[in-house]
């Protein structure tokens, strides 16, 4: 019965091209990039062996430490911010807006599809102080505060970046989590209400535990994206001031293309990959445990 569906020639014809392209564009370069980590040089000038020098440099490089710290800090704050803001919105949709939430959901989702470069430039102008006072600063002026040069220091630029990325994505997580909340059976909520649970208590003891699985998968998805942040940073601050807002991705890019050091660039890319895998693994482990216990 499975003879036609097990036709090897047909499988090869259907799967072959995709597998070939995927291997050539993704798998082979990954291994190749590992090899680059042990070299020095670039495509134009040629490569030469460099032993493990890139790795010892990696451990001593203060710029790597800064970039790694920035990446982790950014990923942690934005991931939590995105998911919490999205969850609050989803609760708003389900428990307060009810049927009329479709339009709001659609509107709040919209920034998700906007090109990051456009959003980055928009926020740059929105928060700017010179040559023209942007809306945020003129709002500050209106309530009697002084303008803040948001992009003048790494600290404030970092927060603009956080605000921007949460602004961009909370509508997305709201829809994702909304789907999970709608799945909670009515009977459960009704009987909890009969037992006297209401408001915050209902949410904390009934809704939150029941939506834990979809919360966890949102977290995993989110952290996987935020660790790889690149576009937002490049468009908003380009890593500055100085290298105050430079994540690993951007440091790798600059090392490779501004300083033409492909070997060291590959080593940083490898570090980034390892960090992504480790963090995903940890979050996945923790979430599995929480779901089975909760």
């Amino acid at each position: 019965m499975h003879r036609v569906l097990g036709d090897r020639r047909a499988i090869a014809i259907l799967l072959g091209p995709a597998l070939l392209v995927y291997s050539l564009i993704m798998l082979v370069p990954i291994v190749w990039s590992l090899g680059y980590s042990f070299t020095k040089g670039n495509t134009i000038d040629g490569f030469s062996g460099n032993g493990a020098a890139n790795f010892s440099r990696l451990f001593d490089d203060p710029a790597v430490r800064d970039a790694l710290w920035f990446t982790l800090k950014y990923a942690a704050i934005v991931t939590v911010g995105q998911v919490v803001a999205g969850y609050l919105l989803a609760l708003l949709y389900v428990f307060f807006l009810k049927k009329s939430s479709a339009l709001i959901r659609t509107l709040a989702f919209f920034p998700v599809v906007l090109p990051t470069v456009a959003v980055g430039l928009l926020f740059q102008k929105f928060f700017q102080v010179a040559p023209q006072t942007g809306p945020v600063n003129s709002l500050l002026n209106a309530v009697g505060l002084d303008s803040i040069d948001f992009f003048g220091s790494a600290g404030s630029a970092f927060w603009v970046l956080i605000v921007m990325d949460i602004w961009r994505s909370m509508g997305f997580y709201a829809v994702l989590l909304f789907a999970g909340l709608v799945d909670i059976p009515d009977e459960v909520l009704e009987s909890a209400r009969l037992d006297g649970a209401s408001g915050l208590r209902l949410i904390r003891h009934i809704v939150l535990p029941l939506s834990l699985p979809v919360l966890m998968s949102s977290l995993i998805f989110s952290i996987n994206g935020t660790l790889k942040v690149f576009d937002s940073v490049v468009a908003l601050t380009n890593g500055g001031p100085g290298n105050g807002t430079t994540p690993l991705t951007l440091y790798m890019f600059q090392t490779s293309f501004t300083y033409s050091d492909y070997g060291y660039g590959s080593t940083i890319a490898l570090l980034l990959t390892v960090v992504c895998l480790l963090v995903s693994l940890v979050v996945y482990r923790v979430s599995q445990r929480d779901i089975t216990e909760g």
Partner: protein
Amino acid sequence: MAIDTPVKTSAGRWSRGPSGNTGPSRRARAPRRLWVKIVVTLLLVVEIYPLIWMFLTSLKSNDDYLNNSTWSLPTTWEWGNYSEAWTTGHLGLYVQNSLLAVLPALALMLLLGTAAGFALQIMVWKGRSLTLLVFLAGMMVPPQMILLPLFTVYFQAGLSGTLWPLILTYTGTGLPLTVFMMATYYRTVPRELFEAATIDGAGILRAFWTISVPLVRNALLTVGLVQFFFIWNDLLIALTFTNNQDLRTIQVGLLNFTGDFGATQYGPLFAAICINVFGTLLIYLFLNQKVMKGLTSGAVKG
């Protein structure tokens, strides 16, 4: 298999209604309190106002932008900013480049991904779940890991001055998600359909093309939309492989927009941002439910 479950349930959730409208109607009828309205208004202002501000600013002249309050309406409505951005700012060229890179990549990715999804889900053979896992692994790896070797290959193959590096890289990096999503959609198609068809004398390859592809038409549109947004909005890959000004995609072009005029021309700059935004807005206006459904179901892959 851990990866299977969330998608199934998510497909189930969404299949209830096109916009998920059915759910909350039955929840307790708390009186509509004032603060809900305030929160919603605030939310809409925060989400929408920056876009309105951007649009109004795109119609201001440089003097108007620099000297008048940022809240004011344009004193004169400078629609010419748009043609300025399109021609002097080369945005027209960038849009054309983007289309020339995105559309072939999209077509190639969907064709290869659908065939592979079919082979992995409908066809029966040993090692198919392992193969699917190999594809899935590609979604975890940061693109930084493949840029440098690809750059070398494209350079040595003499492809550097063309859009081919973009087309090939987009196809390759988009395949994991496409294959995974198409395989998921094929799960809802019964195998018996193809067994019956092949008994009628059609080869399995024909059955794939004439029976299965029309069946997953909707899925193709959804996946296509998701991938379109990913590729259209991509900066990293475009920035890496377009070392020539004439090859810039819209995102790279916009990033370097200020440099193309002598001094920064704010009107055309905002007009360029608007053109970039309105392209996606237009698609979203007509297909928002599909976009929302596609992007969120693409997310529940963890």
